[in-house]
């Protein structure tokens, strides 16, 4: 059976994509969830659809267009809210819808049929190219380097920005670099799960881990592990059941989250009971 699986080149490329995507999702996702910038990341992802449209219309690589739109919108939202020019969620709401609208119009204006629309919205891991994989690998490497080299600075800046300004004059620079890297990461993973689904690929694994620990040092590697397990499971399942991969991965993630919540609830209940029995013995 495993033989079937690896007989096809696209299946191997898909498997490599699963691994790289999990590393990206675990590292960037931990940051997104801990800083509570899930909505911002959602805005970035959807805005990048405008770039996909632009790529189709102007005839260049849609992923490059998406990366451009994603990073630009992330920085714009960061600037607007950082300068208090407008509330962050309003800024994101506008950017979100603008990107989607621009994408639809540009694709509509492109002559001929646009066959990839569904794959951009819901992902198509089986169509990843060698180029996509190289981009994902570079991204994963960048994230590992950035977050391990500046681990403490990044975490402390996220926790208490005002205090961080007393020991660093580059708080704003780091905020922009982080937003740019997160935007790029999310956008490159659109191939795997699509514009609409990719965000849960990033946000569910850290939420699973945070049921069991509240220590950032542990959340990151554990999220990578949860992400890899569930993406690999979803990927394999979709292959044997012949159903869409992106959607299967997300359903797998949600099921894992629910199971872990249940386990957490049982642990809590057992804990309470042992406390109660200790109290009654007193």
């Amino acid at each position, binding site marked *: 059976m495993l033989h079937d699986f690896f007989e096809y080149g696209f299946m191997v490329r898909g498997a490599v994509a699963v691994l790289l995507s999990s590393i990206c999702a675990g590292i960037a996702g931990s940051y997104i969830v*801990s*800083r*509570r910038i899930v909505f911002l990341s959602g805005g970035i992802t959807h805005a990048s659809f405008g770039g996909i449209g632009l790529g189709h219309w102007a005839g260049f690589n849609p992923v490059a267009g998406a990366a451009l739109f994603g990073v630009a919108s992330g920085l714009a939202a960061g600037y607007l809210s950082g300068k208090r020019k407008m509330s962050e969620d309003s800024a994101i709401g506008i950017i979100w819808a603008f990107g989607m609208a621009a994408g639809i119009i540009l694709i509509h204006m492109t002559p001929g049929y646009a066959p990839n629309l569904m794959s951009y919205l819901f992902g198509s891991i089986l169509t990843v190219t060698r180029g996509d994989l190289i981009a994902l690998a570079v991204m994963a490497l960048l994230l590992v380097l950035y977050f391990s*080299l*500046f*681990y*403490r*600075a990044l*975490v*402390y800046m*996220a*926790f*208490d*920005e*005002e*205090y*961080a*300004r*007393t*020991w*660093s004059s*580059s708080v704003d620079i780091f905020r922009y670099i982080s937003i740019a890297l997160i935007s790029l990461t999310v956008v490159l993973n659109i191939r795997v799960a699509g514009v609409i689904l990719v965000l849960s690929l990033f946000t569910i694994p850290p939420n699973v881990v*945070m049921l069991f*620990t*509240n*220590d*950032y*040092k542990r*959340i990151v590697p554990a999220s990578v592990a949860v992400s890899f397990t569930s993406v690999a499971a979803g990927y394999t399942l979709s292959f044997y059941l012949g159903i869409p991969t992106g959607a299967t991965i997300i359903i797998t993630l949600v099921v894992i989250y629910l199971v872990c919540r249940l386990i957490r609830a049982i642990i809590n209940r057992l804990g309470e009971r042992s406390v109660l029995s200790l109290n009654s013995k007193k």
Partner: protein
Amino acid sequence: MEPLLKIESVTTGYESRAVLEDISLKVYADDFIGVIGPNGGGKTTLLRLIMGLLRPWKGSVTLLRENGRKINVGYMPQMSQADPHFPLTVTDVVMSGLMSGKGITGRMRRRDRARASSIMDEMGIAHLSSVSVGGLSGGQRQRVFLARALIGDPRLLLLDEPVSFTDNEFEKGFYEKLYEYRGRVAIIMVSHDLGTISGYVKSFACVNRTLHYHRSAKISEEQLRAYGCPIQLVAHGDVPHTVLKRHE
């Protein structure tokens, strides 16, 4: 004795609005100054100015240099600044007080960890070292932030409303703890509660756009009025003198 901190005729504020005008202050090694004043009068701005978070438009702020580098300043900002839900352990938060001497990669060494555990011991939070800050009570969290301010062995300690959102018992313990540090580190503490802190501080600074320095822990309502510092209305209701003279 040279002052640790010299503020000379400083005017500063936000955007184009001046919050502090022509203020001067000298702080010496054994000072314990209570900073009082009405809301919006510039108390927090004064601390941010000393920390370098805000630059003077006019005048100068000078920290003493020892062995070729500026003295360490410990800072405990107001409670509301940090993100209480960020998944970080108490030890990590305390160690962030060492970042100013570290550079951006913030590599922590064995002796940094040892220093963190000794300061957590001193603050009575050693048992919480691996707990997430999000799960702490208000009082516990304030002790963590005090530990963060003290871990770098500062010569000067700035505290901004350290006992707001905590209960009376914590408040008393917190002030007693600070009192132990009196003499080892100069302290500047912003507070609303003139009555309670008058038992601990050595002098007052009334901040209300301008700064009046009162070189005594006793201060009367008349003096406050003369300083243009309408604090007594907020701080101690109908019986100001009873409260203020408690420590005579």
